């Protein structure tokens, strides 16, 4: 069993019913739970979301990333989970855990804009990596599809 640093990247469709304001309450819950769990298990990364999609990067020791991902897999608030990458990596791209709304909706920007600042999300960390770029694109596309 390997305990080396691993990274997992996935995208999924947001399944929380309703428009941006309905989703807000759920997002708060997800934020609180993720920060709690990730602190406990030393899993860092970033979660980007909009009304259509979730996309997340998880970094940590392999068994911790696996158990965190397993919890995420059992969550009914999203579906069509697509794993984009899962591999051993030499170092973390995200030294802490952060979250941000990524998308084009004005209303959502108003509702969720504060989260990225509050969690110290740095968009530039998502640049310069093919997988992260794909993740970002998929998330933004899904927002349009969700209506």
């Amino acid at each position: 069993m390997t305990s080396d640093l691993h990274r997992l990247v996935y995208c999924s469709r947001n399944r929380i019913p309703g428009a941006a304001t309905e989703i807000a309450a759920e997002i708060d819950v997800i934020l609180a739970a993720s920060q709690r769990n990730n602190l406990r298990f030393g899993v860092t990364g970033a979660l980007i979301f909009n009304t259509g999609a979730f996309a997340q990067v998880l970094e940590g020791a392999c068994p911790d990333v696996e158990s965190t991902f397993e919890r995420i897999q059992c969550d009914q608030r999203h579906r069509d989970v697509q794993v984009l990458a899962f591999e051993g990596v030499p170092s973390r791209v995200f030294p802490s855990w952060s979250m941000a709304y990524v998308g084009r909706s004005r209303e959502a920007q108003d509702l969720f804009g504060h989260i990225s600042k509050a969690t110290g999300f740095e968009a530039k960390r998502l640049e310069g990596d093919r997988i992260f770029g794909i993740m970002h694109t998929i998330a933004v596309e899904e927002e349009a599809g969700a209506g």
Partner: protein
Amino acid sequence: MDIAVPFGENSEAGDVARPHLDETATVALTALNNLKWAVAVIGPDRRVLFSNPRFGALFAGETVAVALAECIGLASDGDGTAARKMTLCDGRTLSIETVRLPQGLLVTAEDVSERVAESGRAAEQACTDPLTLLSNRSMFCERVTELVANLEPTTDAAAVLSVGLDQFKAINGSLGRPVGDALLRVVADRLRSALRQGDIAARFTGSEFGIMQTGQPQPQSAAALAERLTDLLSRSYTLDGHLLNIDASVGIALIPDDGNSCDQVMRNADLALDRAKQERPGSYRFFETVMNEQMQVRRDLELGLRTALALRELALVYQPQLNLVSNEITGFEALLRWHDPKQGLIFPAKFIPLEEETGLVVPIGEWVIRTACREAAGWPPSLSVAVNVSAIQFNSLKLFSVIQSALEESGLDPSRLELEITESVLLGDQRSALEVLQKVREIGVRVSMDDFGTGFSSLSYLRSFPFDRIKIDQSFVRVRPDDPNSGVIVRAIAALGRSLGMATIAEGVETEAQLARATANGCTDVQGYLISKPLPPEQIGGFLQAQTEILAAAPATA
């Protein structure tokens, strides 16, 4: 070697004075004192005539008196022969036998606590799959058989789901047994997480699992669980650095429809599973094909409903409400219609339950409120609009803010908006629904109780909130010739409304006779096809115009 032998005056010890008997007695006594069993002889006066050390140890302390009393009680009937297991208050289980002797009661006892625990563990092991700790197949069969035997065919329904994993053999082959086993354990955990109280899960063999679902409405509940499982179990797994994907298919057999024995039911569930794997891996099938068709229709309906709002296939029509005193139209009830391009017009009865089950009632309900307010704002100011609000919408914290913002956006005066709610809104978590209703009332919106008289305790709900109006269900309005009581009931409800300061509106008025009766029974308003069928918004102006003309032409009433 302790010899705890209380020889009393009445003992027959003196009879064994002869030498060889003496020796035998000594040997016997030694044997008794070294037995692993507790032995005692209790005289008719409850005195312990003889006891070996083991007896003394086993029955030490307070338990003695209780235990002895029980033994004696046991043995007092019949010939004194008895055998039983007894659990002491300290948790130990003893096996006790008694035999009547001329001298008294012979008691033999043994501490069998360990053996009982051991057999408990073994029994559990015999029913449990060691890898996943789910039940095993034989245990599952026992429970299914038990269920089938005790089922009330008219009221109870149950389902057996057979879950099969595709590509599992390949994983075992390429990555080895340990990974395969670890995967099965995670699958079992995910499976367990999808179950409800009362459901039983088992691992049959290899990569096949079974679930028995009881106490839930069928076939919807089995379909919902199968849907969840095919989704959940097919999501990727990360194990030991590997990313693994499998498909889970499910076959469903209903009890008692698809079998009245465990074998039959499970065979049919397996057949359904095979069909699912063949037709589309990662899906579920019912054993009965008709059921599959019904589920398909339901699924299509649900999919359609999800997009109906976005695709503008939903529309509101408005049915006029007439006041019996002024003979004027006072408002309209907004009713939802769905124009599906493929199926045509679909009536609410067909899709409203689905709306509520899927939670779509919240976004759709919001759209209804906003649209109705916007439409009504364009009507003459004397007219109000009534909107149906479901109990589920009250669970959403947003309902009040939706209503408030709909009124603001449209500019509609709050007193021109009426919410029609049924009893179900006030069932269950009354407090939060009541809070919303109070808030709504405070800003001037009116509230009426719909379908009055059809629920369990309409009257007590009338007490819990100051409704503005009671809507009398059409079943009381459409009186059949052989049912004179409906009129009495309508009269009573109308009188109740008057006393409580609530208007009463008779629903479903279709004939002049019904209208006359509603008027005679004291209702203040009526609604129904006789006045008008529900109208699309563009026809409202014309309808109101025609009404004005009718009124103008009518002879003046005294």
